[in-house]
């Protein structure tokens, strides 16, 4: 597909071709030409082989690494072949083309504006009608809120409530209640309110600190504390308990809380302590909550305190 002729004879409107720069057929460099052709042939042959190999791999059961490799070689072979072909055997003349004028003439703009506003002359109460029209659109927009409203319930108490209430037992994920004496110092246990095992908003860390002094706002049992497991930053489970230093670390953004001091944040982006669950022991010796968390758990929101 020689283009030598076109560049001279077929100058298109607004274009002019400069002298030929690329095509090897003009330069007469036969050696280079045949080398190029061989390269293309080689690339395509490799692609053919890789494609066949891919079929074989697939039909004998597939193997991800071989599939990826052969696919890559097949695609790459075609790509290399196409590019070498284009670079060596397709016209690479430099063409200069005038840029078109993007803006239209004043008359055209006038004509368009005229057409666009056609029909307006006969209106006497244009402004009223326009307002009414806009009002109709607005009303429709308002009505369109209702289908959107169906997407989810009103955000109510849900964000502020968990499954805890006075007397509700703290149980493991399998529903087993927990006794204080079964926790050795240094133990951390994730518990839920009974009947809400696995709930997203109420996982609670039950930690036997083994320490004498605890600074807490809520009643608790011995040296055992219960904090919400959800970070007050973006709600990730604060799962890293550093026993020796009595720290809780959030793996998502590294907020660090002081277990002995009411889970106050001491490092990182969290601004509030983990809510502490008031706990006691029921007459059978199992942990129970003495009430709901004093603050909503997890990340903050606008009317958290309302």
């Amino acid at each position, binding site marked *: 597909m020689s283009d030598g002729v076109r560049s001279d004879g077929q100058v298109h409107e607004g274009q002019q071709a400069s002298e030929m*720069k*690329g095509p090897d057929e003009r330069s007469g460099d036969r050696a280079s030409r045949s080398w190029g052709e061989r390269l293309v042939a080689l690339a395509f042959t490799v692609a053919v082989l890789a494609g066949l190999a891919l079929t074989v791999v697939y039909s004998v059961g597939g*193997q*991800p*690494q071989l599939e*990826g490799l052969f696919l890559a070689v097949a695609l790459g072979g075609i*790509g290399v072949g196409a*590019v070498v072909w284009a*670079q*060596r055997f397709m016209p*690479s003349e*430099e063409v200069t083309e005038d840029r078109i004028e993007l803006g239209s003439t004043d008359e055209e703009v006038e004509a368009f504006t005229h057409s666009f506003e056609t029909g307006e002359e006969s209106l006497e109460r244009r402004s009223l009608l326009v307002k009414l029209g806009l009002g109709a659109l607005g009303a429709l927009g308002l009505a369109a809120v209702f289908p959107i409203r169906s997407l989810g319930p009103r955000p109510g108490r849900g964000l502020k409530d968990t499954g805890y209430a006075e007397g509700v037992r703290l149980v*493991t*994920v399998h529903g087993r209640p*927990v*006794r204080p004496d*079964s*926790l*050795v*110092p*240094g*133990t*951390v*246990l*994730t518990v839920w309110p009974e009947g809400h095992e696995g709930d997203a908003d109420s996982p609670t860390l039950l*930690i036997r600190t083994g320490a004498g002094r605890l600074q807490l706002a809520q009643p608790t049992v011995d040296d055992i504390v219960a904090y919400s497991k959800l970070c007050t930053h973006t709600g990730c*489970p604060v*799962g*890293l*308990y*550093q*026993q*020796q*230093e009595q*720290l809780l*670390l959030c*793996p998502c953004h*590294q907020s*660090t809380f002081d277990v002995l001091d009411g889970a106050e944040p001491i*490092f990182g982006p969290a601004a509030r302590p983990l809510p502490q669950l008031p706990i006691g022991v029921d007459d059978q010796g199992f942990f129970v909550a003495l009430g709901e968390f004093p603050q909503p758990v997890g990340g903050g929101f606008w009317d958290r305190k309302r």
Partner: protein
Amino acid sequence: MLAARTCRVVAAGAGASLATVLAVLTGVGPAAAAEEGHDDPLGYVVDLDALDDPAVVAEGRRLYQRGCVSCHGADGVGAPSGPPLEDAGAASAHFYLTSGRMPAAVPAGAQPQRKRPAYDSEEITALVAYVASLGDGPEIPRVHPDEADVAVGGELFRQDCAACHSATGGGGAQSYGRIAPSLMESTPVQVAEAMRIGPGQMPVFGPERFSDEEVDEIVRYVQFLQEVGDPGGFALGRIGPIPEGFVAIVIGLGATLLAAFWVGKRREQSHDVEEGSA
């Protein structure tokens, strides 16, 4: 491929437990087998039956006086540079000695790192026997991972281990320079011991949290993580999106940019290219 690998693992596990049974029956302790590492896949290392032997305890005390007393004090009462060992028990001693964390090469307070054990299995047996004799700390747990359900183990692992050691067992960062170590080198016995004793920053997972059966399941899952292949190719350290992003930008974008550079190269017009790319 995966299935084949799994079969092999199961077979190896079964073979090992059979060897243990045979060893117990013939009166040859696991320690004898431990001489050849592969016959001790669970990582007991020590001669469990020798721990009560007064001669072994006495040998342990001699080793203790030489290598440990400076930090842990006479008879394990503790010293400024090391914690007391009276209630450490065989499990702690075994954990720290077999993982090479003790004797520590770091100053007191810093986190000792896993390294090649400094003592051979006989010496470790003696030291463990001696530390165990100091008080009544936990015994070396017996693990039976080959009988455990690996998937349930995975569930438990994600509940309480992944937060620090990562879901892939590769370990992770903690506050103030602490690191939850990778579990890729941990032996089954060490994993079980760590859960029961809570070494360093690690919390204790007593029988209230994990029954012996559950410990076996977790141990099995850690074994599984160590053995399971990466069907997707190079695993990039199994540390998630960060190396993936690195590869995407450096290799993915880099290679395609090179391609663009080559494709966009005009023959005999290198002048323009140079100028434009400045």
